[in-house]
């Protein structure tokens, strides 16, 4: 290890050459080409947005939030999840989970950076946001709290990672705990962004702020399987198997709780008698993305865990990849279903045909920027694995 600027320990051989130097297996080459393609798409998407503004997106007056909001949520949920998993070892002191802490905390940094990169092209004036967030803060706004706390959270995560790299576990624990608490507050505020909408009865209430924390933990465990799978090329030693078995068992419990949460959410939605809520819930049940969420994010991984109570880490790696696809649909559904019910201001014969449901489909620009965010996330993580020792050293 050599010591970089600010006393950051980086790997001896870290250089541009070491980044380009990877084992040329078909999978690695495929991944490298995919990431480069996604980054190129990001560039094209951003340029298109800069030229055409929100006209390049599929969003409308009736459906102002689109794919980029969903993808932003996807990334920040991933970040919070990584943070929770990372905290198990270095904040709460569970020894068997310590070996993933550094990797998970680094994961939390790169995922939230990818989220910020995506949201920067959804918010119309991101620079103005940073100025007036400070000058005239809207303290009653969940978006203000969410954004501000996530900014703080990122700072704490970076500081915690710094201390982890320097094996200063005491300080890492202090910043880790603070970062975790700030992150959980930020994340539940993100749920609150939807929970405060009294115009959208399907989302209004306490459900999303709590559900976001639960699903963040689930997302963090899926991502842990994925990063550990790539790290060890699916050849796990006993210590890693022990870690992953523990995570899988927690995941089984969490998914069971999520099933319980979702079942009651749907039952109260459908039979609670709240205007405009039941019909949206029935509508959701008849859409493919809802079932993609249930089957991919919950059912398949849950069955894999139940098969032998989490003793198949290789299978769980693949189940986690499927799980993350489901988590994407989970975020997309949240955003879309919130807006799917027209506000019924009788604009029936004037400007539009009577819409039963508000239509939305992401534009090519939105899809390119979203995939670009994923490419950016993978690239940052890959560079991190080349620059830092993300394995436990103590």
């Amino acid at each position, binding site marked *: 290890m050599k010591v970089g600027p600010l006393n950051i320990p980086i790997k001896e051989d870290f250089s541009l050459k070491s980044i380009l130097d990877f084992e040329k297996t078909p999978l690695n080459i495929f991944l490298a080409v995919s990431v480069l393609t996604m980054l190129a798409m990001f560039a094209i998407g951003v340029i298109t947005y800069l030229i055409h503004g929100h006209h390049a997106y599929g969003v409308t007056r009736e459906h102002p939030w689109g794919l980029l909001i969903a993808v932003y949520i996807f990334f920040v949920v991933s970040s919070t999840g990584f943070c929770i998993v990372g905290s198990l070892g270095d904040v709460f002191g569970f020894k068997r989970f310590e070996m993933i802490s550094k990797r998970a905390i680094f994961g939390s940094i790169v995922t939230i950076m990818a989220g910020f990169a995506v949201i920067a092209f959804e918010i*119309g004036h991101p620079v103005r946001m940073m100025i007036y967030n400070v000058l005239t803060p809207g303290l009653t706004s969940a978006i203000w709290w969410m954004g501000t706390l996530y900014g703080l959270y990122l700072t704490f995560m970076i500081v915690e990672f710094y201390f982890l790299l320097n094996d200063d576990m005491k300080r890492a624990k202090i910043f880790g705990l603070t970062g975790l608490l700030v992150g959980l507050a930020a994340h539940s505020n993100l749920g609150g962004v939807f929970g405060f909408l009294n115009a959208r009865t399907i989302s209004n209430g306490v459900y999303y702020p709590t559900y976001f924390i639960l699903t963040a933990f689930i997302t963090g465990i899926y991502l842990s399987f994925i990063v550990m799978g790539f790290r060890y090329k699916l050849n796990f030693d006993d210590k890693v198997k022990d870690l992953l078995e523990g995570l899988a068992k927690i995941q089984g419990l969490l998914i069971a709780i999520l099933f319980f949460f979702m079942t009651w959410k749907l039952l109260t939605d459908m039979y609670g008698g709240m205007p405009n809520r039941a019909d949206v819930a029935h509508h959701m049940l008849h859409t493919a993305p809802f079932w993609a969420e249930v089957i991919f994010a919950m059912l398949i991984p849950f069955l894999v865990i139940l098969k032998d109570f989490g003793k198949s880490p290789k299978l769980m790696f693949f189940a986690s990849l499927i799980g993350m696809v489901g988590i994407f649909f989970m975020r997309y559904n949240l955003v879309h279903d919130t807006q799917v019910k027209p506000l019924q201001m009788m604009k029936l014969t004037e400007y539009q045909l009577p819409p039963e449901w508000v239509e939305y489909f992401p534009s090519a620009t939105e899809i390119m920027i979203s995939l670009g965010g994923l490419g950016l996330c993978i690239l940052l993580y890959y560079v991190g694995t080349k620059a830092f020792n993300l394995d436990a050293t103590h």
Partner: protein
Amino acid sequence: MARYGMALDYKNCINCKACEVACKEENGVELGAEKHRIWVGGNNPEGQWPFLDIASAAFMPSQCQHCEDAPCQEVCPTNATYYDENHVVRVDSDKCILCSYCMNACPYDARYVDDRTMTVDKCTFCSDTRLARGETTTACQNTCPTKVRTFGDLDDPNSEISELLRTREHFSLKSHLGTNPKLFYLT
């Protein structure tokens, strides 16, 4: 300082849309169906001929309700949406970051994106135009041939709107949401 509101004798509306045109003209609202501060809503008659429910066929002019407890104002992260000195809900386009949260939070679909400034725009009760010139009516009110709209100060007991609200039954839209709209529909 006033507390401006508007009463709408909506059953008098003949759907001529002069108010929409006057609003766009007076306030320089962008062209295009999606870009509107006010609108005339309509219900087709319900039922099947010959048993049509004629009473259900109504025109209902609407716009921003200038709520006393406006959800759009509460959710704005930069306080770009604010209540001015006359209790009119306004948007400071210099502060608006176009996060669109207010568009989602407004129960009345009263907000849209102004593509020229890339910020959210809405009805201002003509505060920047007619009221700023010292006039006492809004463009939509002034042009209405059947005198649907009455604009005025709710705190002034002698104003025409106060008199109307004292003497006519009225209702507000989506009042169950607790937004306390300052648009009143006379029955």
